[in-house]
């Protein structure tokens, strides 16, 4: 049962299209992450949802009610702003009470609800603190409590973690996820960090240039990217030009810099085999392996070795000039050594072919 529906939302600013016919649906209690680089239209989408911008065309529905033209004041969508936008002249309790007072709440009821909202974010008893006395992480929790206190229909989060230092992000991410699931509120969040989107979103919508490129679970996006952009933007990958020769009995046969590989386990973009001809091959680092130079392997030179803990990430410049990233055992080869590259025996869906038109 669809709870929140965006239907063909379009927004232009001075002639440039910020959001282009965007349609999405969310179930009740679902958490959707809008992921994209800057300028992809994700923030504009969030502002269209909040009602701060009015779409040029398209509609926003909540529980079958059209709220497209409803003023933000009356929309009852809670929002956590990127820099929190806490009222610096009000103390913590007054900040949280602000939205409840809009609903006409006064007296004991108000105090009870403020206390409950603060308990939710683990800030009980902090009512009379000034905003300036709080740490960044605490401010973020106050912003959440303030947005949630009036029990909005939808919660919007604008880059919720970007203002925190990296050490704090992972913990805060976990807290936010738990809190939102506990409250069970339908949530849309905007981020440009894939890790954040994957960790928080039940589903992730990848945007580029105002258009929706793909929406799906994090696993789907990683394993079956709909196009080059999604494959490159989501997860680590490198690319190299290949020629698809056709299907062999062991998989899809491609020619890459003069060697021929049979790729088992590849994921074609929209089902069926990729057409013969030139194509771009996107590979996850773990879908390739390094071996001593040998026949049938792609030849190259290791230029960079980065130790990542359990493994190392090697950057290899092939003899044809492409740059590929390959994972391997930490100390297997050194920078400057010649190596051969082959697909892993189990590439795990980490190789994608995208046909390329001539030229």
């Amino acid at each position, binding site marked *: 049962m669809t709870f929140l529906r965006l239907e063909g939302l379009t927004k232009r600013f001075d002639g440039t299209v910020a959001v282009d016919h965007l349609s999405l649906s969310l179930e009740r209690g679902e958490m959707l992450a809008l992921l994209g680089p800057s300028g992809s239209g994700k923030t504009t989408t969030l502002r269209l949802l*909040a009602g701060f911008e009015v779409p040029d065309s398209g509609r926003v529905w909540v529980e079958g009610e059209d709220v497209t033209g409803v003023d933000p*004041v009356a929309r009852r969508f809670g929002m956590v*702003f990127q820099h929190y936008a806490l009222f*610096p*002249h009000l103390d913590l309790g007054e900040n949280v009470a602000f*939205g409840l007072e*809009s609903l006409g709440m006064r007296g004991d009821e108000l105090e009870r609800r403020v206390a409950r909202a603060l308990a939710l974010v683990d800030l009980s008893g902090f009512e009379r603190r000034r*905003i300036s006395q709080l740490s960044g992480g605490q401010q973020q929790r106050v912003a959440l409590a303030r947005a949630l206190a009036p029990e909005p229909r939808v919660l919007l989060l604008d880059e919720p973690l970007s203002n925190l230092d990296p050490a704090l992000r992972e913990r805060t991410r976990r807290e936010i996820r738990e809190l939102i699931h506990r409250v069970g509120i339908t949530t849309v969040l905007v981020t440009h960090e894939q890790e954040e989107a994957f960790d928080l979103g039940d589903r992730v919508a990848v945007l580029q240039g105002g258009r929706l490129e793909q929406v799906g679970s994090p696993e789907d996006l990683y394993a079956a990217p709909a196009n080059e952009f999604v494959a490159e933007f989501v997860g680590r990958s490198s690319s190299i030009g290949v020629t698809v020769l056709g299907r062999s009995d062991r998989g899809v046969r491609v020619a890459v810099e003069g060697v021929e590989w049979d790729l088992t386990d590849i994921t074609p973009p929209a089902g069926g085999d990729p057409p013969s001809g030139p194509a771009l091959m996107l590979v996850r680092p773990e879908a390739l392996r390094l071996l001593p130079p040998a026949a049938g392997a792609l030849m190259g030179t290791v230029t960079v070795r980065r130790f990542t803990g359990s493994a190392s990430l090697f950057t290899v410049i092939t003899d044809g000039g492409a740059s590929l990233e390959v994972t391997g055992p930490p100390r297997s080869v050194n920078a400057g050594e010649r190596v051969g590259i082959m697909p892993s025996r189990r590439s795990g869906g980490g190789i994608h072919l995208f046909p390329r038109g001539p030229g």
Partner: protein
Amino acid sequence: MIGARGGRLAGGALLVLLLWLIVYPLVLVLIEGFRGPGGWTLDFVRLFFQHRNEAQALWGSLWISLVSVLLAGMIGIPLAFLFARYDFPGRRVLGWLIALPAVLPPLVGVIAFLFLYGESGFVSLLIQRLLQLDQPPWALQGAGAILLVHAYSMYVYFYLLTRAGLATLDASVLEAAASLGAGRWRTLYRVVLPLLYPALAGAALLTFLTSLASFSAPYIFGGGFRVMTTQIIATRLNGDNELAMIETVSLTLVALVALWLLRGSPVLDHNAGGRKGMAPARVLVRRRGARLALGVLGWGLAVLLLLPHLTLLLVSFVPLGTWTTEPLPPAYTWRNYLTLVEDPVRARPLLNSLWLATISTAAAVGIALLAGILSLRRGVPGRRAIEGLLAMPWAVPGTVFAIALATAFSVHAPWAGRLVLVGTLWILPLAYLVRNLPITSRAILAGFRSLDHSLDEAAATLGAGRWRTLRRVTLPLLRPAIVAGGSLAFVTAFGDFVTSIMLYTYDTRPISLEILSSLRQSDVGVAAAYGVVLMLVSAAVFALGADRGSGG
């Protein structure tokens, strides 16, 4: 290169200099007010409370100032909201025109009003003619006239400070209020106004202190209406020196109480809310009716604001004695301006004001820079005292300082730090300097504070010594602050009337006093020509300050 000890010495010397120039004269006033022939006495205080006039004057000063704050706020705040929030045809030009009253030095503004709305002013004559009245429709006198001039010249404080405050509001704070269900009015009084409180309190204080110190308007228009500034001068001319001292003390006390009452503006920490975000975007007014109304309103306002300037310009071209009762002058001439250049007696005040303003500004900038280096860079002991002393003359009415300096420097007692400077060339530049210190040091100390300290450290790691760092890094970065503070100080000194009238000599008579004497001789053309010169120089220096100040 000054070592730490040198720095302490220099800091001590600066502190002593400021104490001598600013505090000492005020203390002497206090002492004289409480000393009679037979030692310490409260006689003059008793005298002060016995005279009905005194209470009237103090009460007059107080309520005029309060109403001025109210009027200036009622005009300035809505205008600031209008210009900050809405876009409409002509907004930019109008936004510029709206600050125009700032380029009229107080006395010039007052005479422009006289030419406009006075007994034989344009507007008065026009209305008299239109309605065929036997007499001018009103008399530009008393409290009403003073308030009119105050409202005209002081709404700019509210306008500029409110706009600056609105510019630092973070749009997302307003959006947060909206998403929490707060409508326009609730957002205004629960979020916007509280956040503007520091700006509004600042504007109120500035307006209050300026009207409390206002001298030109009550002096010219007061008639029988008493305020303390003019009362002090009258008492002093009357020879009641000690009573004048008590009056001075009473006026200072009112100023200090105002300062103390408004000191409590909560120091907001903006880490939590604004600053990082963007100011709210302007709303383009699209409805035709609203656009038209705004256009008419805006341009009507612009005409009203510009009328004094235009009148001054027009009157400056009127030959002596040719214009009596016609609505527009019958003849025009360059004569008045030529007189200012050709007649050495009339050219003198122009030159006087120029050199007085120049050296007092240069000295004030120098002291402010020294204070900045010593107190903010070197952190010498007593830095709070230095900063406090520099800001102090801001709260003290000009009349008070004039009296204080006249008191301190009329006695030859070098061992007590007193010299006879009254009647010499040096008393006016000294007075201007004291009055200019808060203006320049405010700008320059703010400039120092905004400098990134790591730039100094970077210069040091690159082998630059203290002097080279100062010359190549600090001073160039401070240029906007120096230009801004300096130009404001120059304009204030150039048009000064209130301290000059107490302390000038024939050889140092400044423009303002020449305007006054031309008016007394009914030579309105020359008075207006001087006024135009003051206005143009002020405008040019402001423009320079805005231009160079932002370029650095």
